[in-house]
């Protein structure tokens, strides 16, 4: 009875408020805890890292044209197109940024996720990274139709959205004070990239989609477009969920905001 929930939690995987002492919970003198064992769990941090490290390495394997991927006469050769080098830099930058953010910026509230998810998620991210990388780094890759102009446009969109995405992550981090579990509404700060908070609840997703659109324009590659589309759909689902959560939590939540696309979605 004088054990805390944390002690019991140490034995099982259930999630509950760690600090509550059993005796003070409004459950009378005998309470029955029903536990569902969700199986082996991994922290979100671990999952995010493996999801990001995979694509980073896999893309580089294709970029350097390791053996058994393309025809043997192309092994370890490099592309003659500048865009291919640029694409590699952008892709790698994106994932390195993500890894660093996971390590130093994000404050993850949920404790863990089931082991099965990591296989599912990693499988998806790793396979699509390989699929994209295969075509972009292929010896028969065709550079974009509108040439340098198209590449530059795509690049600017990509960079703009990467900075935006990072700004949002920092802004969200600053919302949460370490130790406190209080939830707050995110608001625009002095950073112009956060001004999108006037219009959107989850601008981190907005910027992420933008980055991938930029990358698609830059590489003019159907698998990239496909990946962007799927990512957009998935992030819209997440954004809508988050948006609904905000609306439920806060009575005075700004009504102008939509979940991911200003005024549209």
């Amino acid at each position, binding site marked *: 009875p004088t054990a805390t929930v944390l002690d019991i939690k140490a034995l099982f995987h259930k999630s509950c408020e760690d600090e509550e002492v059993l005796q003070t919970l409004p459950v009378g003198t005998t309470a029955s805890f029903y536990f569902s064992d969700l199986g082996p769990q991994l922290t979100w941090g671990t999952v995010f890292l493996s999801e990001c490290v995979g694509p980073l390495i896999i893309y580089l394997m294709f970029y350097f044209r390791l053996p058994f991927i393309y025809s043997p006469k192309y092994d370890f050769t490099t592309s003659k197109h500048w865009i291919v080098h640029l694409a590699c830099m952008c892709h790698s930058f994106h994932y390195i940024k993500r890894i660093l953010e996971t390590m130093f910026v994000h404050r993850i509230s949920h404790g863990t996720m089931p082991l099965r998810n990591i296989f599912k998620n990693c499988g998806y991210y790793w396979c699509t990274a390989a699929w994209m990388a295969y*075509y972009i780094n292929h010896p*028969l*890759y065709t550079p974009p139709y509108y040439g340098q102009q198209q590449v530059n446009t795509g690049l600017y969109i990509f960079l703009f959205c990467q900075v935006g995405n990072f700004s949002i992550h920092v802004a969200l981090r600053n919302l949460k004070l370490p130790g406190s579990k209080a939830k707050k509404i995110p608001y625009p700060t002095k950073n112009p990239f956060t001004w999108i908070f006037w219009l959107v609840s989850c601008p981190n997703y907005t910027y992420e989609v933008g980055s991938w659109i930029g990358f698609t324009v830059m590489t*003019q590659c159907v698998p990239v477009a496909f990946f962007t589309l799927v990512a957009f759909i998935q992030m819209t689902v997440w954004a809508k969920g988050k948006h609904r959560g905000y609306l439920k939590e806060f009575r005075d939540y700004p009504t102008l905001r939509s979940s991911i696309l200003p005024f549209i979605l």
Partner: protein
Amino acid sequence: MSAAAPGTSKAAHSDVAPKRKKGPGALATAYLVIYNVVMTAGWLVIAVGLVRAYLARGSYHGLYYSIEKPLKFFQTGAILEVMSRVFLTWAVTHSVREVQSEDSVLLFVTAWTVTEIIRYSFYTFSLLNHLPFLIKWARYTFFFVLYPMGVTGELLTIYAALPYVQKTGLYSVTLPNKYNFSFDYYTFLILIMISYIPLFPQLYFHMIRQRKKVLGHVEDYSKVE
């Protein structure tokens, strides 16, 4: 209302089936005719059944809830079957002329037709609340033979189509092209064939489990009476 999902998805089939009559002989044609008649009638009955159920309840809310579980079940189970059938019909049999005179086509057509006739009678009778035990029994027993028969026919047909696909590069896209994309239909077909290995046993054992559940209950029921 469990018929709702297969009803809508199978409606596509009744349009698709007649177009395949380029190769198969009189026997297959007869089966296809019966097949279409049953399908059309079945779909109409399902639609009528839905309207009746709605009128009886008076609102949409309960309606969905009552069909939700069976809908999800049939949707998920049926989707695999539907996809495989549409694929077989259009992407293999219709597209590869050489295959249309193969015996394997007759094999899976027969299997599908018999299955569907039983299945649609099953749904029809269920909706009218007059399900003869024979139909229920047939549905959950015939599959023992019909599933392997259908699968064998399908696999043989795909296999027969392979050399032609490789020779002509049907539905395939090669590099270089401005979309930086490629697709090899030949490899795709082989992967499809391989996918039968995990998929078919799952479906088969699922039906066996369903059989135990459905026919098991009925046996208890009759004992009580």
